[in-house]
């Protein structure tokens, strides 16, 4: 629980002077994502502590180095949660790393992503200036939405110092239904749920079974179960937890792992490999030995995009390459925040 912002600001200031690239590092739990970090480590995990949390306001503000586990424990005590159910990928995961990577768990299609929960932030830009954007209120349209821009920017635009997030009550009840079927039928079932007034908060397809998690008030869950029917899994929490944290055996097959984003109703993709469908079919995991170029081509044909997640051969592009005009805009935006290009250089895209 300490404020390290002055020391961090000094390190950024010095790095600007010597043009030293900085590798912003929180709990080091997501180091495997993106291109290899370069430069001197800027430690961020000591800048830690929950600054403000009043459950009645549905807002939590914490320093970016605060362990995610500490935040979740505080919320849990008040019967609340982070809406986007972020994966930790390690015991030391921090709030800042979670936001910078913009990762969301199984609830994402139904309860929103990390960026949807973001209300405000304090950051250091590449001029070593300490700036505040957004705020601690739900509705705020003063100025450009820089806070949300930071989500998923992999630290390339600035060093997050504090984040304010919208939080919500934990559902009173939860129930998981399971049904054995082929992938195509599972996609149809999950897609149909989107246009039905059913309190679904997670849906996935794994080893020949579709899993539907209902969550809400006692009555809401009971009624939805009565309407949908199907077998109930007792104590499904460990299953969802290992999906969220990628601890299911599927994620450790030894084959390269790809994250594939498509529209949820997209038919099964004819790319060789093993598939696990999360987010009701909108986020699909592929374990495959197929060449990256073939995977990208197949997914692009379905209007989707691919991230090389783990275990892949060294690739020129880990995230989906951007069209040239859009990439040029990314470079100009990067320069507007980080004119000397010192933050997490090349972590997201080469030359960014």
């Amino acid at each position, binding site marked *: 629980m300490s404020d390290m912002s002055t020391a961090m600001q000094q390190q950024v200031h010095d790095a600007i002077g010597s043009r030293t690239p900085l590798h912003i590092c929180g709990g080091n739990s997501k180091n495997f994502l993106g291109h290899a970090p370069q430069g001197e480590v800027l430690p961020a995990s000591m800048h830690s502590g929950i600054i403000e949390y*009043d459950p*009645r*306001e549905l*807002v939590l503000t914490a320093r970016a180095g605060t362990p995610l586990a500490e935040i979740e424990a505080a919320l849990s005590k008040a*019967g609340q949660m982070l809406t986007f159910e972020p994966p930790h990928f390690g015991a030391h995961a921090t709030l800042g790393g979670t936001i910078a990577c*913009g990762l969301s768990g199984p609830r*994402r299609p139904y309860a*929103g*992503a990390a*960026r949807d929960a973001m209300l405000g932030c304090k950051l250091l*830009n590449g001029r070593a*200036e300490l*700036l505040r954007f957004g705020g*601690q*209120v*739900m*509705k*705020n*349209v*003063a*100025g*450009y*939405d*820089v806070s*949300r*821009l930071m989500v*998923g*920017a992999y630290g390339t635009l600035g060093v997050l110092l504090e984040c304010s997030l919208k939080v*919500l*009550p*934990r559902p*009173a009840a939860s129930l998981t239904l399971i049904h054995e079927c082929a992938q195509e039928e599972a996609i149809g079932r999950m897609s149909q749920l*989107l*246009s*039905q*007034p*059913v309190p679904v908060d997670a849906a996935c397809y794994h080893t020949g079974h579709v899993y539907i998690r209902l969550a*809400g*008030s006692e*009555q*809401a869950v009971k*009624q*939805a179960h009565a309407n949908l029917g199907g077998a109930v899994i007792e104590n499904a929490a460990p299953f969802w937890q290992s999906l969220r944290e990628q601890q299911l055996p599927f994620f450790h097959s030894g084959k390269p792992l790809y994250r594939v*984003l498509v*529209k*949820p*109703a997209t038919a099964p993709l004819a790319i060789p490999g093993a598939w696990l469908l999360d987010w009701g079919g*909108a*986020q699909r995991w592929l374990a495959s030995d197929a060449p990256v170029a073939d995977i990208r081509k197949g997914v692009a044909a379905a*209007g989707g*995009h691919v991230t090389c997640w783990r275990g892949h051969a060294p690739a020129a592009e880990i*995230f989906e*390459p*951007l069209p040239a*005009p*859009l990439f040029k*805009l990314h470079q*100009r935006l990067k320069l*507007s925040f980080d004119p000397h290009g010192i933050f997490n250089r090349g972590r*997201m895209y080469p030359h960014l």
Partner: protein
Amino acid sequence: MTVAAPAIERRTPTQEALCNGLLALLPGGAVLTDPEDLRPFECDALAVYRRLPLVVVLPETIAQVQAIMRLCHELQVPVVARGAGTGLSGGALPLRDGVLLSLAKFTRILHIDAPNALATVQPGVRNLAISEAAAAHGMYYAPDPSSQIACTIGGNVAENSGGVHCLKYGLTVHNILMLKVVTMEGELLSIGAETLDAPGYDLLALLTGSEGMLGIIVEVTVKLLARPQRAQVILAAFDDVVKAGEAVGAIIAAGIIPAGLEMMDKLAIQAAEDFVHAGYPRDAAAILLCELDGSNAEVSEYIVAVRHLLTHNGATEVRTAVDEAERQLFWKGRKSAFPAVGRISPDYYCMDGTIPRHRLPQVLRQISLWSGEYGLAVANVFHAGDGNLHPLILFDANRPGELARTEEFGRRILQLCVEVGGTITGEHGVGMEKIDQMCIQFQSGELAQFHALKAAFDPDGLLNPGKAVPTLHRCAEFGAMHVHHGQLSHPELERF
């Protein structure tokens, strides 16, 4: 005698080239220069600011928008985009030497894709029309600003519009997937994706609420949600606004997130009641409208819980709408609050601050004190769930000095919102109206960063110049900030 209108005689060679160029690009009737034709475009819903543009263009294809932008970029002419003109902050106020680009002809719903829960529409489609078109699939588009029968989705994106259901369903930024945007240079960009995440920076969030400063929105893909099985409204009356505020906190602390949670104070209640006869208790100091939605069983469960909480927190009367007609009537009173106040006062000025909810008693008390001090009545309507306060200051513009006093009163309210940890605008945008209050909310470093960000999209500052983000010089004059020349963090940047 028929001669060219004076406006045309005053044109510079560049303006002449612009008008001729536009006439060559667009069909007849899509380029307006006659002052009479320009008049309907002189202001948005903040009518205290009015100005005629040099020319209005009404393109109907993306290619035409691109061609217009290329021409304006080449001639370095500023461009202001406009949807339905229902904005409340002067964001669509034209420029005398600029082009006003109306998206009014982009009115087609391109496709509704129920299996993927999305709809792609042109920017001039009205907010409500999307939900009407999605209804056949049992779906709807969630954000519902009060002006939803008239306002367009393009304008909603530009302002990040909210509505009475934001607490549960979010703002525009939470309910869109993809935009097609034409840059100042005429380039067409896809921002976001039909997939839930898009590669690269979250430019979708950046464009949402950017008030026409970063690009022209020419297509919008929105998320659709399943229409809840049932919605029910409870009306609760209180003899004290503080008690009403506490009841709001109690509902949320109980783990219930209502679909809508609205508060009105005595003057707003009376004005609305006199106008639409919604059945509001005229003698209450405050009422709360609490809407619960979901499955039948869920709504029934929550109604019992909320009624109990309201009674326990001092409600003098708690009523559940008996049927859909009464539910609509309860909402009609709230949604008509602005015009209702318009009936009891020659003019009113609508403020739009957001505050942390627990500061409500303090802020309302201070507003009431100032109301006495300025001799100007205030009616308060409040999106209580998310802390967004709309004080309506009643005044008469025909009384000398009253508008100036009203504006000063309004500025003090917004300053107070910032002081208690809130913001100067929850959902109406900065536009022209709150440009000076931006100097209260932000320091020079943040403002310089905003200008740098804007320059990444629009290096020449031709998109809606003068709105949304004040120059540091303007803030220095406003007195909220002290800037030494030469000590700006970005001396190379133009300040517009």
